[in-house]
């Protein structure tokens, strides 16, 4: 297809745009349009599209502008809330990750100390701990402070405390996120 626009097209288009066709059209131009394919196409298409626009615009069902305005405002408000709450969520996730890391490091360090406790457990059947009569007599010799400071009880207490803190933190995080 060759691209050969007619030199009169601009003039015809201006007349159509101003609504002056065919009243203000000279006889010479009118004769040209009836003979020129390009101008004829322009005239036919422009008139049909303008007519279609007028008809379609008259049957347009218009929604309430107030409803659209409020809908837009709601969208903007939701976007603003989301924009503000995004860093809070990020901070919560960061805190959770930091907590998990600290807890993991703590548990690993405690596990090293607990190795001695496992060795003590293996020796437990041979020890006097399961011989209750001897145990009671030995208990009399032990003070409560000594019991607490022993490796067995401190490892257990710290592990329980760490677990409590960990699960507590997760529970608090989930609860605040739901809110």
């Amino acid at each position, binding site marked *: *297809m060759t*691209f050969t*626009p007619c030199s009169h097209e601009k003039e015809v288009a201006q007349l159509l*745009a101003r609504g002056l066709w065919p009243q203000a059209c000279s006889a010479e131009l009118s004769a040209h349009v009836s003979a020129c394919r390009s101008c*004829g*196409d*322009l005239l*036919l*298409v*422009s008139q*049909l*599209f*303008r*007519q*279609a*626009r007028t*008809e*379609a*615009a*008259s049957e*347009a*069902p*218009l*929604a309430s*502008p*107030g409803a*659209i*305005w409020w*809908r*837009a*405002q709601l*969208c*903007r*408000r939701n*976007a*603003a*809330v989301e924009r*503000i*709450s995004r*860093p*809070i969520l990020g901070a919560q996730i960061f805190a959770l990750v930091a907590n998990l890391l600290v807890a993991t490091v703590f548990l690993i360090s405690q596990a090293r100390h607990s190795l001695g406790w496992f060795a003590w457990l293996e020796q437990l059947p041979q020890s006097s701990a399961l011989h209750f009569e001897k145990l009671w007599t030995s208990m009399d010799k032990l003070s409560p402070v000594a019991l607490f400071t022993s490796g067995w009880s401190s490892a257990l207490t710290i592990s329980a405390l760490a677990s409590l803190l960990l699960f507590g933190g997760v529970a608090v995080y989930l609860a605040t996120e739901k809110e």
Partner: protein
Amino acid sequence: MLCESTLSSVLAGDAPRVAQPLMENDAFAGFYQRSARPLWAYLARVSANPALADDLAQESYVRFLSAARPELLLAEGEVAARRYLFRIATNLLRDHWRRPQASSIEELPEEFFAASSNAAQADSRAILGPALACMRPRDRQLLWLAYAEGYSHKEIAEITGLASASIRLLLFRARRKIARLLREPAANPRRQS
């Protein structure tokens, strides 16, 4: 503290203070009254689906209002604001065409069939409708913007996102094709069926 006060102001309804200010309701209502009909006509005739045109027209206005500074657009002039609105609508139409179409007849709205059955009643629609249906969506957009809305090639390029230099050639081809379809209805396969 800052975060709490910002959040509370947002929740209390002072979002415009946090984000950009919204266009005044009255100013918008005036702009809407003047621009809604041409926009709907564009969407309805290019998509050949009045129900879709309803949805997309509303969405276009919501996006227009949610845009960075609609009041600045109005300050530039209503012509610029209207052009921006048509640009949003054009992008929404393009997104719609890119999405997979409804495969089941139950998914189509009732208005779609009503509009189709009424199509033959209107003269321009009876003549232009079948010819437009044979055109590519992009050509339909170009033709409507140029010959129904009277936009210049530069404005069409701005609205559609196409290169300004290519608009002239694309329009010429599209116009020649639709003129042929209008002059020779036998060449239109949709009309024959």
